[in-house]
């Protein structure tokens, strides 16, 4: 099915927005402006952008410790995100969450969870709720390769499979969980093969090809919306930066790192769009420029925003 031109450009813009955001966070973290633990999504943009381009505003997602990209792809604003990372009152979580928990519930994000795999059963619950309420909302559940080795993955996916919950699991296989390579952590070449154990479809796609991700996740979401149950989609990718900011990355060879950079999903998509006649070089450069300007504004907004009042610590424990 042909995708409209506007949508293609939107996907490109989302990818560039994520990259520009992450590169800027990298810089501001190094400068000491962002406290806490930060895990960057750079290199994996095609997954969030391609998958979320299929969603309606009322659909749900769950995210992870590496969650900036998911939030941007679901419609998050970079100024309020940056403010959260700076610990400011104007941030999406009012300074309570920071990078690892950055999320906006009002646009359907049920948390960026820093307990690995914790989002999997929660996403199942959102899908169950949609099923019980009789809506055709779907839930997109993002997590890493490492998360698929946990109890929660098995319990969550198995339960969704027997109840045919409207959910799509998007595995971001970036080859590592911290320092641990997938080849050490599991005995199978493709994580999508685990779908067999649950009697649901499992698909492996090139996670650096935004159109491939968009198509495969789109088909899975259509199945889910029709009540045909969950799908496991494994997106093979790699991360540009360390596991977290500060990671020395001794577990990756220079060559491996360079090969990862060569697979960069953004120039790849840009080239394709230009070839398709959707964008000119000039249009694409303009998008890059707009994003740089947007991020300058976002940082300014974050810097100029006030910190929360200390006593706000006590707010929002109960409803």
């Amino acid at each position, binding site marked *: 099915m042909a995708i409209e031109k506007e949508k293609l450009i939107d996907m490109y813009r989302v990818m560039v927005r994520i990259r520009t955001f992450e590169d800027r966070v990298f810089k501001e973290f190094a400068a000491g402006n962002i*406290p*806490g*633990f930060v895990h960057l999504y750079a290199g994996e943009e095609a997954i969030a952008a391609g998958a979320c381009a299929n969603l309606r505003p009322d659909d749900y997602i769950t995210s992870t410790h590496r969650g900036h990209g998911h939030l941007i792809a679901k419609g998050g604003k970079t100024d309020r995100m940056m403010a959260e990372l700076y*610990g*400011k009152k104007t941030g999406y*979580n009012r*300074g*309570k*969450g*920071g990078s*690892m*928990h950055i999320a906006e519930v009002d646009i359907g994000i049920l948390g960026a*969870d*820093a*307990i*690995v*795999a914790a989002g999997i059963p929660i996403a199942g619950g959102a899908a169950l709720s949609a099923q019980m309420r009789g809506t055709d909302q779907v839930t997109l559940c993002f997590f890493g390769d*490492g*998360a698929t*080795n*946990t*109890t929660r993955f098995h319990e969550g996916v198995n339960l969704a499979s027997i109840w045919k919950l409207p959910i799509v699991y998007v595995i971001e296989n970036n080859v590592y*969980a*911290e*320092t*641990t390579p997938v080849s*050490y*952590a*599991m005995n199978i070449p493709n994580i999508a093969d685990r779908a067999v154990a649950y009697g649901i479809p499992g698909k492996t796609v090139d996670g650096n090809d935004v159109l491939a991700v968009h198509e495969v996740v789109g088909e899975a979401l259509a199945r889910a919306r029709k009540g045909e149950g969950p799908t496991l989609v494994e997106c093979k990718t790699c991360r540009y930066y360390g596991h977290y900011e500060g990671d*020395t990355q*001794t*577990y990756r060879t220079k060559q491996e790192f360079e090969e990862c950079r060569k697979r960069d999903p953004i120039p790849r998509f840009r080239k394709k769009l230009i070839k398709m006649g959707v964008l000119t070089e000039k249009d694409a450069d303009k998008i890059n420029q707009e994003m740089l300007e947007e991020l300058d504004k976002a940082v300014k907004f974050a810097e100029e925003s006030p*910190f*929360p009042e*200390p*006593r*706000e*610590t*006590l707010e929002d*424990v109960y409803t």
Partner: protein
Amino acid sequence: MKEITYQKAINEAIDEEMKRDPSIFIIGEDIGKHWGGSLGELAGLFDKYGAERVRETPISETAILGGAIGAAATGMRPIAYLYFDDFLGVCGDELINQLQMKYMYGGKTKLPLTITAYIGAGLSAAHQHSKCLFGWLMNISGLKIVAPATAYDAKGLLKSAIREDNPVIFLEHKVLLLSRSTSQIPNEEYTIPLGKADIKRGGSEVTVVAIALMVHRALAAADKLQEKGISIEVIDPRTLVPLDKQAIIDSVKKTGRLVIMDEEPKTGSAAGEIAAIVAEEAFDFLDAPIKRVCAPDTPIPFSPVLEKFWMPDEEDLIKAINEIM
């Protein structure tokens, strides 16, 4: 004597014990040659003892602790590296239902295992990576709990924990693990028995019982109060289970006043338990109400401004002491 950091103390304790006893192995995530534990405290152990005894796992807290229990029951002496104590919830069943094996099976097994985990706020790591679960853990029967405040204590207590024939959880405060400050330790081998408090500073007017990082904040507050002529005794219980009640009660008999400083929500805290013990067993010696300086009953916020408000500090302690003087 030599100077050593908290981090190095932990490394040396494990190294010395692994050298001494081949049944000891470590099991956990990212403990191998690259990170040596996420804060680096296990550096070098993988190279020395190999993948067989420094066993890296996938993300598997349930299998790590469950596996440690099974191995301990059958002749090994595992150290389960649980990473952040916030992840203990993932293996909550192993903690509350399985560690009690010896008791349930009529005393016929023993579980010589040590759990290590990072605790504490102060790094803006937000709610899921900042907790001190002292009170929560104290409610679990059959588990001993160690929370050292200095490098000297960390080394001596970790060696004892590993040698213990019962499950022990050894809690390492992240701020201390990342600190470059050092304490003096003997060159020769030493151990510190579990269940012995340490008087970190002698004093006569107020007893302050402080745990882990809070020991340092209590000592700083005691210095300030000294200038105002108030004499504070700072007691570090070092192990919460078994708790050296006698040391606390003896101090209260001398000072007549007790303040407990504990980095966790007040409700259900270790501070509550210590207060209850003194109220029950040493009420007659108290000249003032017992005070608890704890965190508020909320999750832990991210923003440094909020986190600072959340964490008990010197000012909070001084205020509480002034209220009972």
